[in-house]
């Protein structure tokens, strides 16, 4: 058989199967944690974006700097006078523990908001303002075993379930929608909303949609100091829940990746130590220091990449499990975002190279004679 350089590296990794398998498990756990956690937070963000896009939201008006934004409901009057804006829908959102096991998003919407256009009422009807009535997403209704006519207790008040709806967004399908005024009472936000979601009029001839949207953003900033209008995509990534989810996911993943890197470094250091004599033989045959270093780095990155594949499978499995749990089904989709998959593999290879670099350098520095004498 014709021996290739990469094949030679792979033989070196594979010859100690148990250690390699254990190292792969370690890397797999690290990358799996990265894929599951970052995939979860991305999925969460994607669900928000899907929700805005399916409802036809062009812009959201929020406070300039606060993530947990609160806007006076009176600004609706000013927004109504901005020529680019067709509709301004006030809304509130918050997280609520509806049972000890199930946390869900709760929205406060006006009964006539355009955002209902993205929902399909499966049973029952829309709520009426000023009434303690609620709409339940089908995912949440399923996990709470609620149907139209049942009641649900929120913050000590009893709400009647008047409708069950379906949404393209997992986030919305696991949510509760209340009349805005009832939601304001429940959350102590009388006269306040979380944001206004805007639909713009069609851009007039001669003005591109981007220019039209920019004009709307500028008008909001000019006429409502302290507020800003942001595109739906930015709103999806900048809301406080998504920001917190991203921060927690990356922080935890980095710790897991550090542990994985230490595992590779330990494996490669042991491997170099055990193969000192072999490295001496390779040096005696004219292998340069650079070539020895390259060999060990290839071995480390092969470990990293193989561990990355294991991790992606683990992470994908974890995301599937989360998508089925009632506590998280509403905020995570089972699919693995492509970006997370690519990042997971790249991260694994990078961790492999970085963790292997010190053992590789040490291996390359061995003197041929001393290495050959090593016992």
């Amino acid at each position, binding site marked *: *058989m*014709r*021996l*290739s*350089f990469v094949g*030679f590296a792979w*033989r*070196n990794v*594979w*010859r100690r199967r148990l250690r390699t398998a254990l190292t792969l498990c370690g890397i797999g756990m690290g990358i799996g944690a990265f894929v599951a956690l970052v995939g979860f937070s991305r999925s969460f963000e994607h669900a928000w974006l899907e929700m805005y896009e399916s409802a036809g939201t062009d812009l959201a008006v929020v406070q300039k700097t606060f993530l947990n934004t609160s806007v006076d409901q009176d600004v609706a009057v000013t927004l109504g006078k901005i020529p680019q804006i067709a509709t301004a829908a006030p809304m509130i959102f918050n997280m609520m523990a509806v049972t000890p096991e199930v946390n869900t998003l709760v929205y406060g919407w006006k009964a006539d908001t355009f955002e209902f256009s993205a929902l399909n009422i499966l049973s029952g009807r829309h709520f009426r303002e000023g009434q303690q009535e609620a709409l339940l997403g089908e995912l949440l209704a399923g996990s709470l075993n609620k149907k139209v006519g049942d009641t649900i207790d929120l913050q000590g008040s009893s709400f009647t379930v008047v409708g069950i709806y379906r949404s393209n967004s997992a986030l919305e399908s696991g949510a509760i929608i209340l009349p805005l005024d009832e939601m304001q009472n429940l959350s102590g936000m009388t006269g306040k909303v979380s944001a206004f979601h805007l639909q713009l009029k069609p851009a007039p001839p001669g003005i591109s949609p981007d220019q039209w949207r920019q004009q709307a953003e500028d008008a909001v900033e000019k006429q409502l100091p302290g507020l800003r209008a942001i595109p739906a995509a930015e709103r999806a990534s900048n809301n406080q829940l998504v920001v917190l989810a991203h921060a927690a996911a990356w922080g935890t993943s980095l710790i897991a990746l550090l542990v994985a890197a230490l595992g590779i470094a330990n494996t490669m250091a042991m491997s170099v130590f055990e193969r000192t*004599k*072999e490295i*001496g*033989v*390779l*040096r*005696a*045959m*004219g*292998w*340069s*220091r650079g*070539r020895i270093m390259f060999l060990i780095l290839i071995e480390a990155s092969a470990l990293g990449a193989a561990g990355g594949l294991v991790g992606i499978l683990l992470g994908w499995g974890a995301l599937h499990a989360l998508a089925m749990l009632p506590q998280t089904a509403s905020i995570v989709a089972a699919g693995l975002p492509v970006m997370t998959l690519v990042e997971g593999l790249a991260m694994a290879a990078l961790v492999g190279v970085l963790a292997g670099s010190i053992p590789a350098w040490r291996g390359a520095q061995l*003197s*041929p*004679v001393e290495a*050959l004498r090593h016992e």
Partner: protein
Amino acid sequence: MSSANAAPQPFLIEVRDLKKSYENGTIEALRGVSLGIAAGDFLAITGASGSGKSTLLHLLGGLDVATEGSVLFRGQPLGTTHNGAATLDLDTYRARYAGFIFQSFHLLPALTALENVQVPLLGHGGDRHANREEKARALLVELGLEHRLRQYPTQLSAGERQRVAIARSLIHDPQVLLADEPTGNLDSVNSAKILEILAQIQQRHGTTLIMVTHDLNIAATAHRHVAMRDGRICN
């Protein structure tokens, strides 16, 4: 055809006042060795343990650098520094011109016999040796191992392992072959076989053969014999 006034043939390898010490000079392994080895020569280096014979072989093979003095290959100094003269890099020297045979064979356990023989050519990068498998196979066949190509070192006898190691040392057509006690781990039958193979290689290919041995009977089969004692040549 010969000529009475032809220029003397330069040495393939020349050693000038070679000294090697360890541990800040407290241990002197070589104390000034000078030697010339012609192309196609078969030189045996003998001596007791600690006489400096292996150290000399390592310096001749570019595995180590001298504390003082120099080793010249085809007139070019080996190593990185030599009074500003152009030198031959040790890695390049070992990769292109020198082949090694060790007492303990030093085959790589994860590779078959056929793969072990190809290892030196993997050290150069790229794919310059597209026919390396065919070459390795031909060498093993030449050494009578055509039925052992796919065996791992643990599946081979000691004599077979040393023959694989010899094939490995020849894969890049070296000009000088350095053997450190090549029969030290072999029984008398296998020793005789290995010595016969080395002699044939030296005669057939004109390869310069330098062999370290403590066995004077083996040394007697060489063209020249250098005996060492206390870091010096003593004959």
